[in-house]
């Protein structure tokens, strides 16, 4: 690892992370695969969902937090599945109790089941309540630069616009908007949702995003653990390319070898 990388942490709510890849824990075959994929991804921030316990069914079934230990990872409980601000706030409060007062949350308030597109009105309302209640809010939002700025000004610790729909794997469909969001941002901008493969993650990082949050791209790959490793490299490569600064695009060729001294 280069010196530059070592001195290039992702800082969220005052805490430094070496990895700029954030990963979810959904859709894996089993908890073993979850644990192996998360380890291979190198991620330090790991999202989980909060759900009703199945009463009377397999009380001895292993718990996700036994595999993804809060001692080792920063657990980021999400509000996935919430369609109102009220449900999202309740879920965050339950998560805080579940995680012994841990107050970093991923807020997502969804609009409909077909698109899982964020409901911005409810998202803004939930963010306001949560921030007043002392939560550190990382917020899933659309790629609207005005909304992103508003969420930042309210006090969200990271703004996470979608690259494309959750679980779609379509990549970053509107890089121009993501760029507009980044131009104005003082908090980390993390692309959340839409990444399909390693190059999508690299594109986000080359653009200057602070990080990428993904789940399905790894979990739904044929070999999730291998894809997790690919994503780790893509995030690192993209970040290094961003820091290095790419060459300008040119319309015509520019020889790499000297023109002088050619034989003949």
């Amino acid at each position, binding site marked *: 690892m280069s010196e530059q990388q070592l001195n290039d942490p992702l800082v969220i709510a005052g805490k430094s992370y070496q990895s700029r890849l954030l990963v979810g824990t959904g859709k894996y075959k089993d908890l073993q695969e979850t644990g192996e994929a998360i380890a291979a991804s190198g991620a330090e921030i790991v*999202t*989980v969902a*909060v759900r009703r*316990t199945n009463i009377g069914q397999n*009380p001895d079934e292993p718990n*996700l937090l036994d595999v993804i230990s809060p001692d080792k990872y920063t657990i980021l409980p999400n509000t996935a599945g919430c369609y109102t601000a009220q449900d999202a706030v309740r879920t965050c409060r339950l998560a805080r*109790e579940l*995680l012994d007062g841990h107050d970093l949350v991923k807020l997502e308030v969804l609009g409909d089941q077909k698109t899982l597109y964020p409901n911005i009105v409810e998202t803004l309302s939930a963010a306001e309540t949560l921030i007043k209640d002392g939560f550190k809010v990382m917020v899933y939002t659309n790629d609207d630069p005005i909304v992103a700025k508003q969420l930042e000004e309210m006090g969200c610790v990271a703004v996470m616009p979608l690259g494309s729909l959750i679980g779609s794997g379509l990549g970053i469909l509107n890089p121009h908007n993501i760029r507009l969001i980044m131009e104005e941002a003082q908090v980390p901008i993390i692309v959340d949702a839409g990444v399909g493969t390693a190059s999508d993650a690299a594109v986000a990082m080359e653009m200057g995003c602070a990080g990428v949050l993904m*789940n399905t791209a790894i979990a739904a790959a044929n070999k999730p653990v291998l894809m997790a490793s690919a994503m780790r490299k893509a995030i690192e490569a993209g970040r290094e390319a961003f820091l290095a600064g790419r060459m300008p695009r040119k319309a015509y060729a520019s020889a790499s070898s000297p023109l002088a001294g050619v034989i003949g």
Partner: protein
Amino acid sequence: MQIQVNGEPFDAGKCTTLAELVNRLGLAGKRIAIELNMEIVPRSEHDKTELKAGDRVEVVHAIGGG
């Protein structure tokens, strides 16, 4: 005593406190969080929190998600 747990009717038997209910559910010592009638009840207060008929209890845990 009839209460509601996670949206379903539940016979709490002779349980008088939340801690006893957690035990009856086989969840003692598990990583869970509990809401009683829409209010979080901190783990430290489970044994002091009394149940009454008609209470609505939510018990949640962490599962895989993005």
